[in-house]
């Protein structure tokens, strides 16, 4: 028993020791020294710094400033001076007025527990009714990291999401029900407007975020039932002391709201700040600081220890299960399912009654699931659906057939998000644009393009954020900003019966246009501000093959254009193919459109790119492009080497 407790504690200490040479904490009870000096070494302890959100001085500065406004520190300088805070905390915990001391210990139990562990106080925490009741509800738990996949219906959810789940520990062999676990979530309170506005406002810190706890069934309902998102669940094996400290720290943060920034100070980042209290070596899971994507939290948790992050399990959404189940039944059953779902047949239909019990049970369940999906998607009015739904379930309850096993999704080519490439990248490329050779540096802090290895990312989804391409032309001795994309989002989830998702695209940024020259040589390059958006659909006729077509509208503005701006419709269609393991990807797309101005000019563009994976971090790309716009045409070829982070 002792070994079981000491083992994790020892490994935690060892892991602490490997980060940085820690000052010795022994022999600090020399009472002749002034208190501040006394506290200095212990106040540099990584756990203490994490408890004060001091681990990463610059990145956590936002959090600290906000915490300062909420009486989070005992000392007025506590947000900046861990040593003064330590002295002030000790003084508060041991205050002469017992109720005040007790209140301080109950308000900041994690800080108190740490100082107690380190032998710095002999006080006992004593009862804290609210905290104790709260802790009892959560109970003895294990930790699971929950990752709902990207939700392509909403720009704010495209990177996926991370939350923690505290699972009641199995007792006396009784199976624990995951639905009854508690989740810890950090979210922005966005009020009641539309999501695109949220995202833009979230970029500049227009919201406050807050931690919250909710039962897992509320989360599966929200992500799974309503948003059709599959959920990955990573079991976490972390020491009990670490887990307890995390919980106590969560309690300390219960009334705190923090500034929320969509890409930097988001759920992933804040969860890391909390988890750091338990695992001080966490750091970050990739990306370019200060950007954090949800999958980076998962990657960071691998740093808890070699086996800390268990094998992920997939919790498929009802939509995924329905699609998979429908794919497996014969056509005649599918047709009957459709008739029952749309109400043209009733459960007492002869075609159904004549079937054997198992088949009848299966069809009735499928019909209910299909109707439910359509109702949730608002394709069927709820009043019509409700009575029919109940009739289908009632009929199913009267069939004497065993409950079918849940559909095994493992057979699908699914990859957990941690299998994906790094979310940030740097690319070095060389090529020829029109007649000029160039060397290109490309930096893209987030996130994924169709040309990248598809494993771990939403099918048909593409997000480019702050994609910056700088080109140097040696012959002209010029550096140009070739392209700057503020945001480019494409969601082209393929149509698969019974689902027909709408594909859409929106993009805003600066690109280079070649215009007919006023000089005698070649074409002029012109930086053009552009915004483009459209809708369409996508298909996957074969595994790895993805075809899409979109109708779009584009606006371009630049001084070099006649009338300074043009607007026009365009059709964009393309396909991509990835080999089964995603090592190689080929992508091609064509654009045909009109650019209106004083004279309307056709725009034609054909692009072919390919990528091959060299190592998990490195890829090589080769691409060619022909473009004809504003009455001039040019070719471009490019060879690049990409490093993912």
């Amino acid at each position, binding site marked *: 028993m002792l070994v079981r407790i000491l083992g994790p504690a020892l490994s935690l200490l060892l892991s602490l020791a490997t980060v940085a040479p820690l000052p010795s904490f022994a022999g600090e009870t020399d009472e002749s020294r002034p208190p501040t000096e006394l506290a200095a070494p212990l106040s540099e302890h990584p756990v203490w710094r994490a408890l004060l959100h001091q681990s990463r001085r610059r990145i956590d500065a936002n959090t600290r400033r906000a915490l300062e406004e909420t009486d989070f520190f005992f000392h007025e300088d506590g947000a900046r001076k861990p040593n003064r805070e330590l002295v002030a905390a000790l003084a508060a915990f041991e205050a002469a007025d017992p109720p005040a001391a007790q209140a301080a210990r109950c308000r900041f139990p994690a800080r108190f527990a740490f100082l107690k562990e380190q032998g710095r106080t002999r006080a006992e925490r004593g009862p804290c009714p609210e905290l104790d009741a709260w802790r009892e509800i959560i109970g003895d738990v294990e930790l699971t990291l929950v990752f709902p996949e990207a939700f392509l219906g909403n720009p704010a959810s495209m990177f996926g999401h991370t939350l923690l789940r505290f699972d009641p520990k199995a007792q006396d062999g009784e199976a624990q029900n995951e639905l009854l676990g508690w989740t810890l979530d950090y979210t*922005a309170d966005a009020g009641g407007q539309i999501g695109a506005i949220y995202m833009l406002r979230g970029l500049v810190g227009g919201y406050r975020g807050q931690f919250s706890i909710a039962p897992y069934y509320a989360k599966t309902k929200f992500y799974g039932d309503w948003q059709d998102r599959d959920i990955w669940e990573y079991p976490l094996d972390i020491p009990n002391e670490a887990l307890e400290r995390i919980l106590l720290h969560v309690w300390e943060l219960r009334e705190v709201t923090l500034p929320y920034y969509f890409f930097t100070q988001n759920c992933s980042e804040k969860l890391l700040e909390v988890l750091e209290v338990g695992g001080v070596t966490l750091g970050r899971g990739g990306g370019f600081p200060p950007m954090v994507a949800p999958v980076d939290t998962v990657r960071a948790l691998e740093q808890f220890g070699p086996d800390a992050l268990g094998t992920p399990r997939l919790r498929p959404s009802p939509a995924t299960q329905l699609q998979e189940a429908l794919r497996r039944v014969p056509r005649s059953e599918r047709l009957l399912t459709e008739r029952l779902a749309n109400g043209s047949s009733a459960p007492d239909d002869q075609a159904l009654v004549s079937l054997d019990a198992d088949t009848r049970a299966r069809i009735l369940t499928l019909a209910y699931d299909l109707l439910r999906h359509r109702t949730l998607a608002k394709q069927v009015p709820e009043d019509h659906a409700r009575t029919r739904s109940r009739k289908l379930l009632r009929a199913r309850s009267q069939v004497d057939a065993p409950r079918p096993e849940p559909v095994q999704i493992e057979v699908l080519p699914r990859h957990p998000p941690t299998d994906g490439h790094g979310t940030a990248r740097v690319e070095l490329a060389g090529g020829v644009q029109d007649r000029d050779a160039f060397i290109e540096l490309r930096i893209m802090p987030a996130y994924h393009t169709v040309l990248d290895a598809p494993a771990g990312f939403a099918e048909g989804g593409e997000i480019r954020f702050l994609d910056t391409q700088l080109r140097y032309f040696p012959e002209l001795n010029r550096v140009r900003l070739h392209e700057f994309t503020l945001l480019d989002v494409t969601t082209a989830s393929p149509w698969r019966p019974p689902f027909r998702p709408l594909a859409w695209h929106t993009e805003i940024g600066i690109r280079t246009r070649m215009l007919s020259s006023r000089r005698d040589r070649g074409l002029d390059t012109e930086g053009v501000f552009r915004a483009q958006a459209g809708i369409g659909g996508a298909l996957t006729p074969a595994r790895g093959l993805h075809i899409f077509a979109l109708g779009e509208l584009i606006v371009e503005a630049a001084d070099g254009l006649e009338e300074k701006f043009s607007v026009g419709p365009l059709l964009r269609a393309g396909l991509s193919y990835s080999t089964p393991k995603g090592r190689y990807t080929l992508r091609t797309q064509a654009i045909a459109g009109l650019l209106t101005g004083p004279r309307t000019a056709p725009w034609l563009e054909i692009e072919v790119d390919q990528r091959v994976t060299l190592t998990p971090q490195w890829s090589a790309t080769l691409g060619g492009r022909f473009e004809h716009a504003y009455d001039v045409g040019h070719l471009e070829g490019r060879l690049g080497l990409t490093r993912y982070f």
Partner: protein
Amino acid sequence: MNSTMKALMLVAAIVLAPMTAAQADNDVGCGVGTMLMEGKTGLPYKLLASWTNGMTMQSISITFGLINCSNGGTVTASARARHFASTSLDNIARDTAMGGGESLDALAALMGVQDADRAAFAQLAQNHFDALFPSDEVTSDEMLQTLDRLISEDARFAASTPLALAS
């Protein structure tokens, strides 16, 4: 209006249009925003919504203060069962019809049904589908009371904790 302004307005219209069209909820951040679901606005509509007794998933603070049925910060077993039933009534109905499932198991756990009796519990529920869901207007509390009565009348569940539903 100069052309730059025109361009900017068009840009705003074009870029925001598909986002708003595809927008389904008040999500913000890298995941769900605070789930404020007062009434039925904004979210994909829930089947059997009126079954949920007007109680929806609300953002629940760290202290569970917003579980409507909580009592002074603590959450009683029956309060948890009621919250679960109201949130997951459609899943429970489906599991009941099928004769078992994860949601029905969770409900059984919250109602204090012993692990060994889960299969019997599922069987009981399935056999009484009509009593538990007599109409499509049934509320989660009505369903729970019926279920509670069925359990108390069945000798197999003598060891189970009575829920003492306050209504």
